[in-house]
C-alpha cells in the first residue's frame, strides 16, 4: 500500500484522522516518522500533518511556559526567555536535527534518544493531547508510562512552571561523542529553594529505565535540606535506587548504575 499524506488545518481534524487509522502516524519534524519510512516500516501507510499555528506557539511570558508540540529545538535556542532550556535543547542532534526535531516528537523518542523529555520530566510538565474523544491534560510521567499506546493520540503542547531562578534547573547529558552524541545517561534536576532549603526537588533520569524516570530516592535525599556536600553525597548515593537501566550499544546497565551517582553529584555540585 502506498503512503498517503493527509494535511489538515486544525489539530482536531488531524487528531481524528490519527485516531481512526492504525497505520497513521503524525509527522512532526520527521526525525522519527521519515526515518521509519526510509527504513522500510510498512506498518505506516498514512502520514498525518496539521498546519495548526497553535502547535507552533511558544508562550514563555508568564510563570507558566507553554511550548507547542511543533516547536523545534532551534526555536527554543533562539528564545532568550527559555535560557534554562538551552542546555537540553542544544544536547539534541546536530544543527540540522535541531532545526527539524520538535518538542512533541521528543516525547516519543526512545533510548538513546529523547533527552529533552528528561528535562520536561524534571519540570513536571503537563502534556496536552488530543485523542478521538477530545483534548485532555496528562501529567508527563503518566504520559510516558503509557507512551507505547499513544501513537494514535496527537500531542498539542507541553507546559510547565518556569523555574524561579536560573540556578534551580540543571541538566546534563553524558555522551561518548562530542559535541553530538547519543546519551549514555541524561540527568535533569529541579531544585527550588525556600531560603537555604530545597523544597519540591525533582530529579529526572534518562536511559536509566526504558522511559525517562524520576529518581525519587535522590529527591527524598535532597528534600528539605540545603545543597551542601553531605546532601549531594546522599542524593548521589540514592540516585541508582529504583532505576532499571538496560544494556545497549552505548553502555551496559552495570555502567549506567555505576556512574549515575557520580554524574548526579557533579551536576548538583556544579561540576558538570
Amino acid at each position: 500500500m502506498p503512503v498517503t499524506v493527509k494535511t489538515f488545518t486544525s489539530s482536531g481534524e488531524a487528531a481524528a484522522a490519527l485516531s481512526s487509522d492504525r497505520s497513521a502516524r503524525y509527522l512532526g519534524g520527521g526525525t522519527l516518522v521519515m526515518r521509519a519510512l526510509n527504513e522500510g516500516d510498512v506498518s505506516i501507510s498514512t502520514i498525518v500533518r496539521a498546519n495548526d499555528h497553535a502547535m507552533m506557539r511558544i508562550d514563555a511570558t508568564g510563570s507558566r511556559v507553554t511550548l507547542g508540540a511543533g516547536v523545534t529545538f532551534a526555536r527554543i535556542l533562539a528564545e532568550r526567555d527559555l535560557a534554562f532550556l538551552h542546555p537540553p535543547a542544544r544536547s539534541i542532534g546536530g544543527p540540522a536535527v535541531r532545526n527539524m526535531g520538535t518538542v512533541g516528537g521528543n516525547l516519543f523518542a526512545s533510548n538513546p534518544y529523547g533527552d529533552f523529555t528528561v528535562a520536561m520530566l524534571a519540570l513536571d510538565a503537563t502534556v496536552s493531547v488530543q485523542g478521538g474523544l477530545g483534548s485532555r491534560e496528562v501529567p508527563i510521567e503518566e504520559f510516558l508510562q503509557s507512551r507505547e499506546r499513544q501513537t494514535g493520540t496527537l500531542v498539542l503542547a507541553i507546559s510547565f512552571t518556569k523555574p524561579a531562578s536560573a540556578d534551580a534547573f540543571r541538566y546534563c547529558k553524558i555522551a561518548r561523542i562530542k559535541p553530538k552524541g547519543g546519551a549514555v545517561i541524561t540527568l535533569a534536576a529541579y531544585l527550588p529553594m525556600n531560603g537555604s532549603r530545597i523544597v519540591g526537588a525533582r530529579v529526572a533520569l534518562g536511559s536509566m529505565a526504558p522511559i525517562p524516570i524520576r529518581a525519587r530516592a535522590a529527591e527524598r535525599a535532597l528534600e528539605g535540606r540545603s545543597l551542601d556536600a553531605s546532601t549531594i553525597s546522599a542524593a548521589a548515593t540514592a540516585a541508582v535506587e529504583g532505576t532499571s537501566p538496560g544494556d545497549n550499544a552505548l553502555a551496559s546497565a552495570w555502567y549506567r548504575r555505576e556512574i549515575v551517582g557520580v554524574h548526579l553529584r557533579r551536576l548538583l555540585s556544579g561540576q558538570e
Partner: protein
Amino acid sequence: MAKTALQFRHNGRDVAIFVDGGTNLLVALRELIGDMTPKFGCGQGGCGTCSVLIDGELHLSCLTLAETVAGRSVETLDGIKDGPNLHPLQRAFADNFAAQCGYCTPGMLMAAKALLDRNSQPSRAEVVEAISGNICRCTGYEPIINAVLAAASVSRARA
C-alpha cells in the same frame, strides 16, 4: 499510485514535480530534479550527507517529507557557486585538503554555509558545533574545521 504536485524554488529556480506519497526531499532532489549533490548516507538523520538549506536553515533532506517544501526555497551544494566561481567555502575546503573520498563534502559544505551565513566570524568551538551532525570517515575533521575557519577569515578580510 497517486502523485502530488509540488512546486518550490531549487537553487533560485522554480521547479515543479510530482511526488509519490511519503517521498523524501532527498529522493525528490536526486531522482526527480536530477540534483545529485545531496547524498544518501543513512536515511536516519545520523550522517548529514544529505544536508540542504530550506529557507536558509540547515535540514536533512532524507528526513524531510518532500511536499513540506512546497513554496519554499531549497538550496543545495549545486547552488552555492557564484556563476563559474567557487564559493569561498569550496575554495577553502580545496585549499585545506578537507576532502578525501568526497562523499560527506556536500553535506559538510552546506552545514558550514548555514553557520557562516549567520555568523561570519565563528570560533573553533562554533565550527565544531556546526559540523557536528555530519559524519566524515576519512579526514579526522581537523582539515574541515580549518577550512571553515579559513573561509571565515577570507570573508572577514573582504569585509
